[in-house]
């Protein structure tokens, strides 16, 4: 098991090298000059050239990449072109909010999505099933900025319960969390429902019924664990996506998260931030995937057997 974890963590190295190279290439080789963006349209060519020199942008691309890798191995990921602050100071400044949002919304999505999916599957074709499937359809078809704005309109402006912007207190998290959770929740609900339906048809469920087990017992003891295996993957992937993909929600609720930082850094061609954030997210994503795989092992003994090999 530990061997497996270490092996997986080692695999991160080529992954990160690959990702960093791709991102570095994309940012470097696409048009747009960071120095010009920082100084704006009005600045003279000379001032822009000086800044370019200062940021080392005139070096050839490969040389810049190698020196980036070199210094980042030593732990120096550079400083933001925009703020001049060390990259990870910026990233760690923004990450807690994004992490909290992602965690809260995954918790909400899971806490609602799994039970609703189970009920839908067990009471297939019932009113509850129909209602929850329609709800899931709505949640996946509505763009999140629209959900966000509607929530603000109803709960902030009309009903005056939650703030429009800011997360000074826990109340501020409610609407962004719901907004973010909506899509994942719909996916989890549908996934749980379909895997539950799949599992309910399995022979071992019939065996359990033949044993005289009650429906409740069958569902809790025999179905859920089996049905959750694919759902865990979906949760893991969604959580990873949420870590890097909260930008729209962050914009709607004017929250300073990692998504906004990353997107504005891409716009600004702020290479050190983009690289730092992408590497950070890649690591986070891999760790989440690893955790998902470890959770598999807890749920499914067949998988566990594979790991110990």
């Amino acid at each position: 098991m530990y061997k497996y974890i270490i092996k997986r963590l080692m695999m991160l190295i080529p992954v990160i090298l690959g990702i960093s190279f791709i991102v570095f290439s994309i940012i470097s080789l696409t048009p747009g000059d960071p120095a010009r963006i920082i100084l704006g349209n009005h600045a003279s060519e000379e001032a822009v050239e000086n800044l370019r020199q200062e940021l080392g942008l005139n070096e050839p691309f490969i040389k810049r990449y190698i020196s980036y890798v070199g210094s980042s191995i030593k732990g120096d990921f550079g400083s933001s072109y925009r703020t001049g602050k060390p990259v990870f100071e910026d990233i760690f400044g923004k990450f807690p909010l994004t992490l909290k949002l992602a965690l809260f919304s995954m918790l909400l999505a899971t806490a609602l999505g799994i039970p609703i999916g189970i009920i839908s599957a067990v009471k297939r074709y019932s009113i509850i099933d129909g209602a929850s499937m329609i709800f899931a359809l709505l949640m996946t078809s509505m763009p999140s900025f629209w959900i966000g704005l509607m929530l603000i309109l109803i709960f902030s402006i009309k009903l005056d319960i939650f703030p429009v912007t800011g997360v000074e207190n826990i109340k501020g998290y409610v609407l962004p969390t719901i907004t973010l959770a909506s899509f994942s929740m719909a996916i989890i609900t549908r996934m749980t429902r379909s895997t539950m339906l799949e599992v309910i048809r399995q022979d071992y469920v019939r065996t359990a019924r033949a044993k005289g087990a009650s429906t409740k017992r069958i569902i809790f003891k025999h179905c859920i664990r089996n049905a959750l295996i694919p759902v865990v993957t979906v949760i893991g992937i969604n959580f990873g996506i949420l870590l890097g993909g909260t930008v729209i929600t962050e914009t709607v609720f004017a929250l300073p998260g990692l998504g906004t930082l990353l997107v504005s850094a891409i716009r600004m061609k702020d290479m050190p931030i983009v690289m730092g954030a992408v590497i950070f997210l890649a690591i986070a994503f891999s760790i989440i995937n690893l955790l998902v795989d470890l959770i598999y092992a807890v749920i499914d003994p067949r998988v566990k057997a594979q790991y110990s090999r």
Partner: protein
Amino acid sequence: MSQTLLNIKNLYVNYETDEETVRALNGVNLKLNKGEMLGLVGETGAGKTTTALSILKLLPKDIGIITNGQIEFDGKDLTKLKEAELRNIRGERISMIFQDPMTSLNPVLTVGEQIAEVIELHKTLDKKQIESKVNEMLELVGIPAKRKKEFPHQFSGGMKQRVIIAMALSCDPELLIADEPTTALDVTIQAQVLNMMEELKHKLNTAMLLITHDLGVVAQICDKVAIMYAGEIIESGTAEDIFEAKEHHPYTVGLFGSIPNLIEKTNRLKPILGLMPDPTDLPQGCKFHPRCPQCMEICRKVHPDDRQTETHTIKCHLYK
């Protein structure tokens, strides 16, 4: 005479979906006495499994529907029982072994847990007693008790079927339904499992409904035999009736003809010509008549009744 344990009377079962209605059982009559072993024989799709599932009311929810008939078990009509009452019968008084041991065990629970569950459900025993019962059952089917902590994927097919048998027998059921318990297994393993079942049956004095398409198996271990075709029992009787009597339903004759016989030299197998009728569109009259080599005019129009001679029953116009 021995006591009737199971008496299925005129049982009709349909599988109803939006598109079509499958007439799976069309008036099945079946009787089983305590401690007896009945072999239910027939081609795939004849309605053997449906009969078994009907007894335990395990037909697919909202699709498999009992439209008529009674299933009397120990004097009670199972079709009229509530779900909760049925639960007390399932696993305790009637238990079932399914066709495919590979998929019949829950992959995420240990075999010990799965055997313990059935005991837990029906007996008021403390943990220790359950443990020792599990051990006892495993040993009974020839699996070392220490393997109870293992998961199904760690067992071979034959071992899995033993686990399932152990599970089915743990509450000393009065009736054990075994739905083709050996089809998914290797031939050598098949023999082992069958031997074991026969042994256990004697040891525990359990009545058994053995579903199979293998006449050889039936000849080996069954007291009584019933032959099914298109949702009906077309011939039934003691093993002697079926294997030695002169008069048979033409289908039974065909069935025997399609078994390779090493003792009598036959040049080639004689398979029954044609296919089972489409259960959504059954023929009028005798359901076997399109394939019957001895088909008469009446067979096409009138559904034959049972002709009973002592223990032997045949549903055919040939015998009046």
